[in-house]
């Protein structure tokens, strides 16, 4: 049912913004990285070090200046238009710092939003209910986001990210707006659900405890990966 597992491979991935004076502001410097399928990875680093930029590149929301990203056999950076949209819907799940739920839709409808695009499946409804059940919100399926607490909203967002059984779950400071306890339980859910599906997880966090729950921690500093074992 899930798409064939595949490693995430970044090669000499570079992101730079042109400066008005003709030079360039390089945010990410020739990153090389391999994440085996199903691994959970925490990305840590000071603000402005390029964590979100990296996640957005992997998530195809942004285009690299040079370098490549592969997910299994797919060369992600060359996708455009229809196939890009399909790739996002099929292979990727996003959880943002802000829940980004649509205010006019109920919890269950928000979970179903990714299924509206391109390929509606018959069992989507059942699956959305099951996911809401799994994140402990089966009672709140018809509530609008404005009636949910921060933690509940983020749990709906996790269900939404997983509705299409993505291969890769990208989370950018998913607990950034939550208190510590709520954050911890949200992370637990996220990791559990991802593990259920065998999804690869890339999660940006500032919380060392959360990072410790991932199998590997990547440190970013000024757009470069700090070698494993080096001082933080």
């Amino acid at each position: 049912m899930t798409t064939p597992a595949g490693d995430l491979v970044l090669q000499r991935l570079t992101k730079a913004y042109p400066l008005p004076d003709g030079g360039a502001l390089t945010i990410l410097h020739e990153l090389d990285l391999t994440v085996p399928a199903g691994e959970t990875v925490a990305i840590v680093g000071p603000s402005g070090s390029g964590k979100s930029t990296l996640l957005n590149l992997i998530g195809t929301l942004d285009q690299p200046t040079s370098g490549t990203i592969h997910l299994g056999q797919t060369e992600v950076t060359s996708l455009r238009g229809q196939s890009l949209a399909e790739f996002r819907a099929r292979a990727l799940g996003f959880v943002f710092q802000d829940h980004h739920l649509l205010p006019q839709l109920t919890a269950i409808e928000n979970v179903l939003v990714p299924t509206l695009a391109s390929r509606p499946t018959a069992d989507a409804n059942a699956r959305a209910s099951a996911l809401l059940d799994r994140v402990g919100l089966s009672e709140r399926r018809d509530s609008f986001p404005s009636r949910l607490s921060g933690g509940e909203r983020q749990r709906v967002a996790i269900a939404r990210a997983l509705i299409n059984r993505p291969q890769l779950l990208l989370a950018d400071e998913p607990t950034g707006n939550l208190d510590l306890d709520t954050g911890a339980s949200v992370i637990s859910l996220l990791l559990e659900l991802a593990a259920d599906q065998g999804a690869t997880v890339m999660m940006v966090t500032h919380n060392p405890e959360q990072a410790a729950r991932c199998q590997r921690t990547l440190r970013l500093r000024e757009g470069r990966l700090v070698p494993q074992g080096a001082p933080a």
Partner: protein
Amino acid sequence: MNLYEGIRVALMSLVHNKMRSFLTMLGVIIGVAAVIIVVAIGQGLKKDTMSRIERMGTNLLMVNPGPSRRGGVVQEMTVINLKEEDAVEIAKTVPGVAGVAPEVRGRVQAKYRSRNTSIQLVGTSVDYAKVRNWKITEGRFFDDSEVRGRKRVCVLGSQVVTDLFYGKPAIGEFVRINGMPFEIIGTAAEVGAMWGSPDSTIVAPLTTVMYRVLGQDNLSSITVSARSAEDVDKVEKGIEVLLRKRHRLRPGQDNDFNIMKQSMFLESMAEAGETMTRLLGAIALVSLLVGGVGIMNIMLVSVTERTREVGVRKAVGARKLDILAQFLVESVVLSTIGGVLGILVGIGFSQLIARQSGWTAIISVSSIIYSFLFAGAVGIFFGLWPAKKAADMDPIAALRYE
């Protein structure tokens, strides 16, 4: 995203913002309602006018002295030569004729007690009431012996009764016409404003008016009714042949008379009504367009407000086309709901106006269909640009949007 889902999602967005959705629709509602009302009242007025004319008879022809009007210029005739004999001969010899009313007209002073008015006096034969479908409500029309005897009797149009008698019974009273007393033997029902309406005239025997009042024996016109609408053309031809012979016109010489048909008048009336309806309808359509601009304005605001929604949708795999469709469906749903409400409001107001004014309102199915389709087209046209703007958004910028 399939269309059904799209409409459902669009409806949810619109319901989420009820007041704004309604205000946005208001432009379209007013525009569509205006179109419906204008067309309904226009068609109603047209029908009223037509039926009024028809009540007078569609089989009417009017023979006037002088050649027919060319290029809107009335050619002045020195010799006016329609005589009573012409009318008599038409009645006697032209096939298909049902009635003939020779008419001589002139302005006179009519006086009753201290009330004095300048009025049109018509001298005619007994056929007049029948030919013109003139209903005598009280008293009677004059008869042949009164015409032959040049009797001073008269019948009053409804407006004259109002003006001189303030609507009180007038039968048996005497009205002075140019100083001569005429006995009032009948009063007529109101006909309404129209071609040669007899409401504001006094009608008296032809001979009396010719020889006792106006002192002339030339006719102003001859009104002829054909037996049926099909006979009208035949009668026209017959009259032409007869009068040319009687007036000793050589072949190639122009007619010294002209014949107008009621049906011609009917057609031009209908055309004028149509033109008026079209014109007002066009103005109403412009207001519908203005309503469309309102939709575009709100859709632009809505797209900006929902920038992050667009970002989320794109991040989870919505194609440009999906985003475009989403906003387009929303504006079309807005405009068509506005259209439906506008149609209902339009129908309601047309009926109300009709009831208040005594006019007829005719709600035509085509005006409903056209204004509905037009409202839909307005939604597409004015929704396209905002939808395109949303579809072209960069997902990261959209997600970051505060």
